[in-house]
C-alpha cells in the first residue's frame, strides 16, 4: 500500500530521484554531534509552527478580545496552557540552537566560499527569528507585553529625521493600540513565517548542492 503510494508520487513528481540525491549525498567521514545543531534548530521551528497553528484556533487578535481569549485558552481549553508553554519554549530553544549552529559553522570556517550565500541566508533567518520573538511578545496583550512594545518601538524615535515616521509605521498610529496588535499579529503569523520558509528552502537546497564542509 505505502509502496504503491510512493510509486505513484514518483511517477507524478519524480520524488525518488530528488530524495535519493538528498539521502545518498556524500558527507565527510568524520563529523561530530555538533553537526546536528542545524537540524535541532529546524525541529524547534517545526514545533513552534505546529503549536502556533493550534494557538491561532483560539486566539483573537483584537485590542478588546486578545487578553480574554488568552485567559480562556490558558484556563479553560484542554491543555491550552501546555500548548502555550510549548510554543514559548520552542522559541527559546530555537534561538539557542540557531546561535550554537552559527558558532559551529563559524568555528569550522564553513561560511567561506562557495558557501558565503548560505551563511548570509542563515544569518538573515536568525534576524527574522528575533523579529518573530519581538512581535510574538506583544500578542498576550497584557501589562508586560504592552509596555515592552511601547519601549521597543519608541527606540525608532531616535533615528534622526525619519524617527516619527518609523514609529508610526511600527505602531500603526501614534500610540501602541489595537492597530499595533493586528500589525504585529500579521507579521508574526504570516509575513515572518513565510519569509523564514523561503530562507530555509534555499538554505537546505544549498546544503544539498554544495555538501557540508569538511570541518577543521
Amino acid at each position, binding site marked *: 500500500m505505502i509502496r504503491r503510494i510512493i510509486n505513484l508520487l514518483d511517477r507524478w513528481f519524480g520524488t525518488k530521484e530528488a530524495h535519493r540525491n538528498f539521502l545518498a549525498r556524500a558527507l565527510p567521514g568524520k563529523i561530530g554531534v555538533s553537526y546536528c545543531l542545524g537540524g535541532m534548530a529546524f525541529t524547534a521551528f517545526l514545533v513552534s509552527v505546529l503549536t502556533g497553528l493550534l494557538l491561532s484556533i483560539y486566539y483573537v487578535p483584537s485590542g478588546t478580545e486578545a487578553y480574554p481569549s488568552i485567559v480562556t485558552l490558558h484556563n479553560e481549553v484542554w491543555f491550552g496552557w501546555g500548548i*502555550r508553554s510549548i510554543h514559548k519554549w520552542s522559541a527559546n*530553544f530555537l534561538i539557542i540552537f540557531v546561535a550554537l549552529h552559527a558558532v559551529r559553522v*563559524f568555528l569550522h570556517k564553513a561560511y567561506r566560499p562557495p558557501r558565503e550565500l548560505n551563511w*548570509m541566508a542563515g544569518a538573515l533567518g536568525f534576524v527574522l527569528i528575533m523579529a518573530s520573538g519581538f512581535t510574538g511578545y506583544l500578542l498576550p496583550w497584557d501589562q508586560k507585553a*504592552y509596555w515592552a512594545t511601547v519601549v521597543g518601538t519608541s527606540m525608532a524615535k531616535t533615528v534622526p529625521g525619519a524617527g516619527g515616521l518609523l514609529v508610526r509605521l511600527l505602531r500603526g498610529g501614534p500610540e501602541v493600540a489595537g492597530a499595533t496588535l493586528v500589525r504585529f499579529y500579521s507579521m508574526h503569523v504570516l509575513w515572518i513565517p513565510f519569509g523564514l520558509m523561503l530562507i530555509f528552502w534555499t538554505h537546505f537546497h544549498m546544503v544539498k548542492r554544495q555538501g557540508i564542509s569538511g570541518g577543521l
Partner: protein
Amino acid sequence: MSQNGNKKAFYPDYLPFVLVAALIAVEAIIASALLFPPRIGPAIDLTAPYQPKPEWYFLWIYQLLRYFPGSWAIFGTVLLPALLILSFIFMPYIDRGPRGRKKSLLVGIVLFTSLAVLTLIPVLTGR
C-alpha cells in the same frame, strides 16, 4: 574537498543520529514547557506604567541603551546593533585576503563576548 578522505552517505550513516538529535530537541522543549509554564500577566493598565523587561534574547539591547543616554541614544538603539548584525551577516566578506581568518576571528570573538557580557550583566544584577 574533504581532508578526511573516507566519505560516508547521509543515509544510512548519519540520518539516525539526526533523528535522535531531533527527538532530544523535542523532549527538551516539552520537558521545559511542562516544568516551567508561562503565567497570565495582569491586564493592560495605562494609568500604571511600569519598567518592562524584554525577553532574554533582547537583554543585550536593553543593556546597551543604558550606556547611551540623551542625544547619544541612537548609538544604543540603531548604530551599534546595526553594526553588530551587519558584521554577522557579512562575515564571509570580512574573511578575505591572506589575514582574512584572523580578521573574522577577531570580529567573531568581539561579537560573541559583547553579546554574552551585555546579556549577563542584567541577568546577574537582576535590573
